[in-house]
């Protein structure tokens, strides 16, 4: 193989991931974008205009003239959509904070155990992932229902007199999300904390910092990259969550995932659903770019 052939082959191999991304990410996104610019129609597919190469140049021109931004105007006019976006961002933000509050101590404890036990503990954190998410959410429905395990325990301990309602509330959604996304928070945090030189904490104590101050001034700044990675890794998918709010939450204030589902299946309005999805992607572009940038910097440092 001569130099030219080898360099051509190298370029080809490098381009395969790009081709994959183009075929399975870029192209579908462009299709969704196109549908968002269409109108509903009682047809197969249920939108118009449809790109028809057979009609030649005239067909393509007609296609482009049939596109409009009507659906985006619809999003702006009906408060349902705006409220949905706000709800999603709100739940994602609070969930992420709760995940941080719960996940950091777990990751810290695992990082501080003797190395022999660390692998076993990490596996325990990830183990639930080996079962289906849907089954685990159903299990939560079982636990949180009126005569479920949680209320049984609360009544038995005498904490409440009458069984409170958990399902179809925001609380249930938070419980479900924090439970399901915990590994996404714990693993990046653990990865960052595990690299920490613990003698730095001894040095901080030696120099006069009590334990909480040493944590604040040394441990936290040095695990900041893990905190950022964990938060973004949770926040971005939670915004678009569907299964958990659908099963555990109420339908009074839906998250954006539920809204898209409703438009798509209940209203059979593909264009509107697509428009909602496109706006969601635009909303998430900033955090995604931040995450990518941070991941690259972390990789460079290592």
């Amino acid at each position, binding site marked *: 193989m001569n130099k030219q052939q080898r360099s051509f082959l190298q370029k080809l191999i490098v381009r395969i991931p790009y081709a994959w991304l183009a075929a399975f990410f870029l192209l579908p996104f462009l299709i969704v974008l196109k549908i968002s610019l269409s109108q509903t129609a009682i047809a197969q597919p249920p939108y118009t205009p449809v790109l028809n190469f057979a009609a030649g140049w005239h067909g393509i021109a007609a296609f482009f003239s049939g596109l409009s931004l009507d659906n985006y105007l619809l999003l702006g006019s009906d408060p349902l959509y705006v409220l949905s976006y706000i709800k999603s961002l709100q739940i994602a933000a609070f969930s992420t904070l709760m995940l941080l509050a719960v996940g950091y101590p777990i990751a810290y404890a695992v990082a501080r155990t003797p190395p022999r036990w660390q692998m076993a503990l990490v596996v325990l954190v990830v183990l639930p992932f080996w079962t289906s998410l849907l089954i685990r959410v159903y299990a939560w429905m079982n636990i949180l229902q009126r005569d479920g395990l949680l209320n049984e325990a609360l009544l038995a301990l005498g904490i409440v007199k009458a069984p409170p309602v958990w399902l179809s509330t925001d609380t249930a959604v938070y419980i479900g999300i924090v439970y399901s996304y915990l590994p996404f928070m714990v693993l990046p945090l653990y990865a960052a904390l595990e690299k920490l*030189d613990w*003698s*730095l904490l*001894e*040095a*901080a*104590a*030696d*120099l*006069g*910092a*009590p334990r909480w*101050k040493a944590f604040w*001034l*040394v441990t936290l*700044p*040095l695990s900041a990259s893990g905190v950022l990675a964990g938060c973004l890794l949770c926040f971005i998918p939670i915004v678009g969550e569907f299964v958990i709010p659908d099963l555990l939450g109420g339908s009074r204030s839906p998250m954006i995932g539920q809204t898209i589902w409703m438009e798509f299946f209940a209203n059979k309005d593909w264009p509107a659903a697509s428009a909602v999805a496109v706006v969601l992607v635009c909303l998430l572009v900033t955090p995604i770019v931040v995450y990518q940038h941070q991941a690259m910097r972390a990789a460079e440092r290592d």
Partner: protein
Amino acid sequence: MQHVGIKQAFAPWTDPTQRALLRIEAVSKRFGGFAAVDQLSLDIYEGEFFALLGPSGCGKTTLLRMIAGFERPGAGRIQLDGVDLVGVPPHRRPVNMMFQSYALFPHLNVEANIAFGLRQEGLPRAEIAGRVADMLALVKMERYGTRKPHELSGGQRQRVALARSLVKRPRVLLLDEPMAALDKKLRGETQFELMELRRQLGLTFIIVTHDQSEAMTVADRIAVMDHGRLMQVAPPADIYERPASRWVADFIGEVNLFEGRLGDDGVSVEGTAAGRLRAASKAAAEPGTVVCVALRPEKVRIAREAPAERSDNCTSGTVVDIGYLGDMSVYKLRLRDGSPAKAALANAGAIAERAIGLGDQVWLTWPPEATIVLTK
């Protein structure tokens, strides 16, 4: 005997009116079934450069960490300035440590690293800045204030670690093998700088090291440890010239060890591989006991010609190996009865002038002062 004192004037441990700065009383520390430190008692005086010396696993680092507060003694007391330290957490002890790995904060620059300890004291910003600047000048790192630790060389990081631990003016500075990561030349320079720093600041240093020459160079007194116990605590010259036991004699430097019986006069030792030996002073043991005699190789005179009178402290052997070390030559010998011996000579003249070669029959003589009788 004339005591060769380099630091002759400073010897507070000999003064009964002096009170020790740091008192370690019967301190023990066990890890599982293993005793890292075993009922160890030690007094360290203000202004000393004190060395803890011993082989790996002897407990010297554990002892240091107990003084710093990172380990709790299982038994015993540690007192600083008369105040019991046990129960006082490390961040409240007037003691600072320089870690073997330096433990510099990687997310802070040099100035912030040094200022860290002062910030915990809540001092005004201007004073902190002033003291940090002074300390940077003292360790000759003025131009590196804004650099981060990963932008410094090993020697530079060591200076920053030293500055950081000194800036709080601790009552005692603990150094955990501070020069382990430096090359030989830098180590030598740093040893003298450390001594100079201590003298300038008037502080008390406790250094942990496994390097004998380092301990001998810097320390006013050395505590030799083995398996969690003290084997001897004395100035370097005393440890070398008057070791307290066979173990210490063997651990420090090179030594010839001969076994024999103590004679009736208390100064002669009979029946050794090197014949009859005579010491300069009476040994503290009953005549007839089996004793060990230590003889340092550099005290032995080698000659091809037999001495005028064959008295004590005189034997003969064959040269089986010569080690050329540049500044001196070490002769490995086989004595008449087959036991090994070592003699060392400075290469004062050119090598060609040395008349002794491999396989030569030589006579060894040495003065009575070099015969060290060990009863332990």
